[in-house]
């Protein structure tokens, strides 16, 4: 039983077809990568999966439940959460608060609890804070919980985004270029973090990534998009030698053959 099944997804922006008839299946306990040149439709696919955009055609089933027409917060509650390519943290909130916002849908408090049951509120908050601190430790941000998110360094902000997404207890974690701007050793740390997440914090991960070292290093499956169409799919080794993939990245011509070798 696949965790996520996407069938025939199509999205148009006016005359531009951002996604055309895309199928995608993500199995349990898998790290899947989504690659492709700039403008291939990768982030659009993420935006549709998380409900920020509505698909023109196609079906999305998550854990055998249809997600069509669900709002973004319902999708997060159902168990899909994401990070953003161009970091979107809550700048003037503390690092801890950022993670706690991620937990919003998992804190079982009603408005009347908040207003009239101080002890209940405090107990839930204490529990949530402890969990949030644990996640901050996991991504290596312990000790920074009290500073504003915008004061973190770039790499730290990327890791905070991961912690914030994990806070919503997703089954499927979507990462949009998690290693962007990282040096090779930071990318290495990220890779081992992601490997550890599968099975412990999340069931599966789908990542958009340009760093091929990361893609080839940790993915079980790789899906390649180009101009909104899926052009290849398979294990990293299969995709690496796929003629259409090489063409999409390098173009057709006399140099294409060199890349293969």
């Amino acid at each position, binding site marked *: 039983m696949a965790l996520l099944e996407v069938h025939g997804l199509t999205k148009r922006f006016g005359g531009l077809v951002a996604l055309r008839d895309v199928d995608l299946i993500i199995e349990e306990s898998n790290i899947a990568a989504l690659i492709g040149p700039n403008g291939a439709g990768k982030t659009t696919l993420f935006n549709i999966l998380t409900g920020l955009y509505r698909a023109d055609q196609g079906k999305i089933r998550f854990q055998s439940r249809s997600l069509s027409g669900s709002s973004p917060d319902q999708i997060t509650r159902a168990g899909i959460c994401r990070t953003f390519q161009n970091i*979107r943290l809550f700048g003037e909130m503390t690092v801890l608060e950022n993670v706690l916002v991620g937990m919003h849908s998992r804190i079982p408090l009603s408005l009347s609890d908040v207003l009239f049951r101080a002890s209940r509120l405090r107990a839930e908050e*204490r529990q949530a804070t402890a969990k949030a601190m644990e996640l901050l430790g996991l991504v290596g941000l312990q000790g920074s919980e009290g*500073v504003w998110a915008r004061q973190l360094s770039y790499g730290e902000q990327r890791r905070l985004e991961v912690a914030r997404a994990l806070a919503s207890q997703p089954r499927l974690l979507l990462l949009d270029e998690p290693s962007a701007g990282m040096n090779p050793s930071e990318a290495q740390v990220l890779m081992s973090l992601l490997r550890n997440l599968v099975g412990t914090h999340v069931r599966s991960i789908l990542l958009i990534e340009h760093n091929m070292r990361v893609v080839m290093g940790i993915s079980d499956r790789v899906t390649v998009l180009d101009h909104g169409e899926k052009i290849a799919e398979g294990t990293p080794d299969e995709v690496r030698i796929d003629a259409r993939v090489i063409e999409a990245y390098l173009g057709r011509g006399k140099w294409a053959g060199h890349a293969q070798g």
Partner: protein
Amino acid sequence: MKNWFFNAGLAGYIGLTSLLVYSFPRSVSAFLLFEASLLLIYYAPLSRAAKLSFTAAVLIVLMPLLGTLDGYYLEVAIQIGIFVALALGLNIVVGFVGLLNLGFVAFYAIGAYLWAIFGSHQANAFLPGGYFPLGQAWFFVFLLLGIAAGALTGILLGLPVLRLRGDYLAIVTLGFAEVVRALVNNLDKPINLTNGPKGITPIQRPPLFFQPLVEFLGFKPDAAALYPLYFYFLVLILLLAIILVTRRLENSPVGRAWKAIREDEIAAVAMGVPVVWMKLLAFAVGASFAAAVGVLFAAKQVFINPESFTFMESIGVLAMVILGGMGSIPGAILGATVVTILNLQLLKGLSLWLNGLRQSGIILSLPLLGSFDLSQIPAQFEPAKYERMVFGLIIILMMIFRPQGFLPPRQGGSTKLTTGGDTGEK
């Protein structure tokens, strides 16, 4: 040892300024110094319990005592209280959620007219039976109804503007407030609901249910003297409730969700924050505060008309929130207090002083510059006439030198409640 020093210092300051007010009952500066004691309490490095007891002593004991000397002090205090409540309500929408509302005074008007219509003869104009004005005790029912009506209108305004942000939202809220004002101004025909620009009077005041107790204690109660005190304490209780509710909300998932929407709405919704519901909640809570004080305002004034609910009032409350520091409860309180004192006391005090100089006939001679006859100062110089200009200048200066306001939200301040104990610094 150090605490003892601060405690004694504060107590001394409060005692001294109270004595000053007592000895110079007409002096604005003495009263300002007394009011400043609250700010000192806020900043003093004391325990929470000590701060609370000092605040209680000033607000519950000293202020009413001084108020019995001169009713004007109580009037100022009540006005401050009303504006603090309005600023706290607006702070939720503008400060926490970041939705610019330029028509906040509409909710205040709705609360005020709710009680004004049913707490006076006005309702007889459109409801048969002559049941109106309702009895004084109904005031308390209408305080609750006001909260409900405020929340409801808040949601009604919120629904259509959910997708708007920034300038667009500001325009719509501004329009909404003008619609409300135009309605109360014109709904005297065909059915006379609001009595139009003539306003409504007399409006019932709340019942003096404690009068027997005061008599029993051996005082000669006089409604004229009791009512200012009564309203003072009503405002104080209402404020306390508002501050408690706001703090609870701020230090809960709700408050965090609000701030997350302010910081990045897309990210907030992607993290599972139900943005629609949270925005409506903010509109409802903020509006219910304003409507509740509106009910109180109508009862205190005994007379209301549409003039009290103009666009400038909305701007004034917004300025209080901005000056105090958006998104900060102490900021909203301080902003409202400073602006109200400025309007009611400082500028008027300066005018009085200038008048005094003019009438004194002193001729001031300065070396090189020649001599001035102070009685020549034109009457147009009165600072009270420049209220809005001074106000505007202060806002401009603040925006240049301290755009975050007097008391901006402290970093990590809102997690104080949550981090108690188990997350100590490493």
